[in-house]
């Protein structure tokens, strides 16, 4: 399991715009870098990130080899009702990791 | 423009023997504040120690890392310059 960091408020008012920050520790190996022995390091990147808000997709992004290691993503969300936010990173070599956070909307 | 300005000052400033590459950095440590001062020491002793450190001999803490940055010719030139009293 990679270490994932997520920052969002625990509570918010209905209709409020909140900022969500995520970071996952990942090498983001481009697939182009030659190693000391002359061979090329195979690509190993996060390719896709999604955020589900009560099972509805509210944000997603495709990532490419040019993205830096430990990709940091920051995005905004309009709150509707209390529930669960699910964050999923998927990538090369069958990588998949999901983290959840609860949000209370008042 | 720069050459003219330089020429105009030529007479006033005699050239001294300039330090060979790397030599002027030595004074940061070897000026007599605790580590061995170099001025007045035999040139061969300084060059010999540096060449030994470069070859991985002896047990220096930092001088091996520094000696590896210089060729034998550069080390001999540095030794001659830092050994001269000034």
């Amino acid at each position, binding site marked *: 399991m990679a270490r994932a960091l997520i920052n969002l408020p625990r509570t918010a008012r209905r209709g409020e715009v909140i900022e969500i920050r995520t970071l996952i520790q990942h090498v983001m190996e481009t697939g182009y870098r030659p190693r000391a022995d002359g061979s090329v390091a195979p690509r190993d990147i996060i390719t896709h990130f999604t955020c589900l808000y009560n099972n509805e997709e509210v944000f997603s992004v495709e990532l490419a080899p040019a993205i830096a290691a430990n990709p940091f993503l920051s995005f905004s969300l309009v709150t509707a009702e209390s529930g669960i936010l699910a964050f999923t990173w998927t990538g090369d070599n069958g990588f998949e990791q999901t983290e959840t956070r609860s949000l209370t909307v008042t | 423009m720069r050459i003219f300005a330089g020429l105009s000052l030529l007479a006033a400033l005699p050239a001294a023997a300039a330090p060979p590459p790397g030599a002027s950095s030595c004074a940061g440590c070897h000026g*007599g504040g605790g580590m061995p001062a170099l001025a007045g020491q035999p040139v061969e002793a300084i060059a010999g120690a540096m060449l030994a450190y470069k070859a991985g001999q002896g047990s220096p803490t930092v001088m091996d890392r520094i000696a590896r940055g210089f060729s034998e010719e550069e080390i001999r030139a540095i030794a001659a310059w830092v050994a001269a009293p000034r």
Partner: protein
Amino acid sequence: MRRRALLGAALLAAPALAQAAPKVVVIGGGFGGATAARALHRLGVSVTLVERDATYLSCPFSNAVIAGLREMEAQRFGYDGLRREGIAVVVQAARTVEERRVVLADGATLPFDRLVMAPGIALHPDAIPGLDTEAMPHAWRAGPQTLLLRRQLEAMEDGGLVVLSAPANPYRCPPGPYERASLIAHYLKTHKPRSKLILLDAKDAFSKQRLFEEAWAALYPGLLEWVPLSSGGKVVEVDAAARVVRTEFGEHQAAVANIIPPQSAGRIAQAAGLTDRSGWCAVDPVSFESRLRPGIHLIGDAIIAGAMPKSAFAANAQARVCAEAVAALLRGEAPAPPKLINTCYSLLEPGYGISIAGVYQPKDGLLADVPGAGGVSKPGAPTAVRAAEAGYAEDWFRTVTADAFG
């Protein structure tokens, strides 16, 4: 037009100048500037040193002052040594640099044939919202801030959390935040053992990292925690009055917070139009002449030196090379390509020292590492080696301060 006018001026001035020693002004009396002034004077150049303060307080070893291991007066150096040698010392800030003359704070001007500037750094606490350096000192320039941080640590109750934040590159003294964390941890261990230190970092890697981490595991287990960028180490704002430090992913309630802000070349370098968009000064690596204003040379922490770090040792080494280059140019000669050395010691507790060294040469317009040279102290070395390097650190300090200030 401009070129022709200047040429005319130079030709007219030539007979007068030929009779007098060439005039060089040095701005900044730190390790770089003071060394440059003395080296130029020895080369027969008439030198005037312009320095804002009557005495200089050394940043090297100031972390030991913060940790109560050393007194501030041991950091203080004056300019009487330079005056005795015949160097004119003007204790005044420089306001700006016009064509071939320096304008001082009181409006007086100093003409020069060439100018050497060692302007050091400017600190930018405004880059961190909420930061008030009287409540959360940076202590990144030796002086009142150093003593303020020391007093805050002394006044802290046992069990408090000390938060230290290290900036992103580039900044003055790359291993400095880690030496400081080590020595504050030593103070806590010996005086306030229930306390903790968190070192928040805007980077994922740092100078001498393996050696610092080796020492921290041995000396300060459970006391000192390093939080890199990828673990949420970047500080985004603070509440200085409440002593709260916020990162991208959380917040810390500190008893004492030491936020080291982003930096750029010193104020006079900006005022004189010598900085580029990075906020630092690009120079030629052979002559240390500004890439933006011919006739002005820059050394020390303010410059973009490629692989060479922003250290007092580097400033001292650059000053000597720059002085030779300035003297050569005044003779109408081309300066010879130099090699330069840097060695930086860090103290992890009293009697425990480590070092990083490098040898540099001009390459592709910057100073590059000479391949195969340089590196850090051996990991896992016996305590006698660490003790020897702690001693060499003090030897270096005695030597370089004598070299710079006489």
